[in-house]
């Protein structure tokens, strides 16, 4: 195991996002994005997520984003919280 724990932040409610983090197979981080506005904002969501994931320093995490139309600040907050929980000793 790589020390990444299972964690969750956010919700599936409208204008929110549910972020789940768990151990991935291997050392690479894995990112899955689903969104009700994927066509419009998929690329932006992905780049914000990559940025937050890299900044957290996590390795070997599987991050799943289930977006329900969250604002960028919400997305960042949910990601940071989920990653922090996943890395907490």
């Amino acid at each position, binding site marked *: 195991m790589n020390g990444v724990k*299972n*964690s*969750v932040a*956010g*919700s*599936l*409610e*409208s204008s929110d996002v*549910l972020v*789940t983090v*768990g151990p991935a197979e291997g050392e690479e981080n894995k990112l*899955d994005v*689903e969104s009700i506005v994927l066509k419009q904002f998929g690329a932006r969501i992905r780049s914000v997520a990559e940025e937050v994931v890299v900044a957290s320093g996590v390795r070997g995490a599987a991050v*799943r984003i*289930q977006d*329900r139309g969250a604002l960028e600040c919400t997305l960042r907050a949910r990601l940071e919280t989920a990653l922090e929980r996943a890395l907490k000793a």
Partner: protein
Amino acid sequence: MFGLEERALVSPREMEERSRLLASRGLAVPGNESVILGFFEEERLVATGSLVGNILQGIAVDRELEGEGVAATVTSALLKKAMETGRRQLFLYSKPDEAKRFEALGFTLLATATVERTGLGASLLEWGAEGIEKWSAAIAMKAEDGPEKSGVAVVNCNPFTLGHYRLLEYAAARTPRLYVLVVEEDRSLFPFEARFRLVEEGVSGLKNVVALRGGPYVISSATFPTYFSRMESGEGEQVTELYAALDIELFGRYVAPALRATDRFVGTEPYCPVTSIYNRMMKERLPKGGEGWPPVRVHEMPRFEIYGLPVSASRVRALIREGGLENVRPLVPESTWKWLVSKEARPVIEKIRSSESRH
């Protein structure tokens, strides 16, 4: 959703309120729940949802609050509870006409089954998008070098007996290759690893037989929860039929195509009411095929008998329970016998002697 107070339901009065809410939406109380959540609006229960192991079930919202996103609140709360306990693979049961709502929340529909005779129906969904695909790709890999057609037997083998051996021998003679899927759920008296090893050793003399782990989509607590609990009469039978139909649908849709299986082999079931319902449903449904999947022939073979008594794993367990391990010897192959008298088997035998479990 603002203003709804979430809390775990415990008191009998709350449970009563919950079953009324479930009934008002045409849902039964799931049973065996590990977590039951209630959502209150000024002390009135307006939504509920529960976890049965890794399954989200019994999600209901008061009619008055319909369309306000409360189902998403309930689902999120249940997902969090489940993931906090480290569960990654999650399933959800819904009514067939409500499956779409949960698909919109990020679940993938695996199968829908209805039993016309009772009017009962259910959909099974899983959280995430790749579970079943990954799994069927993995088992398809194992069948890659195999022949164009094959047969499948699904077995629990708790433990592997001569009855199982005879069934598999019979099946192996009737198909170019036989895949034996061993139920992986660890809820039987014999642990999965031991059951699996005894199947592998037991069939090692049959050249065209391959034993595979059953995985989460073949008679698991998600696809067939009542398989692992005692069945009560009446209502239990109807629910068992429904779960059997779901399991059969999954088999036809995903398992059989991945293994290129055209035939399924079962033994007649003299003792276990759940298995005999399952066999009956299988004979009704698999040969018809389903929407998007081809028919599968079902072969039912009478149980192998010794001295006029069927050789079954439940009889082996009963004999162990009665104390005379030696009496088991004629009913099992040498490999199972060796294991039963080994050191590794001691805790299992202790457990059987002190347990009433059907499995």
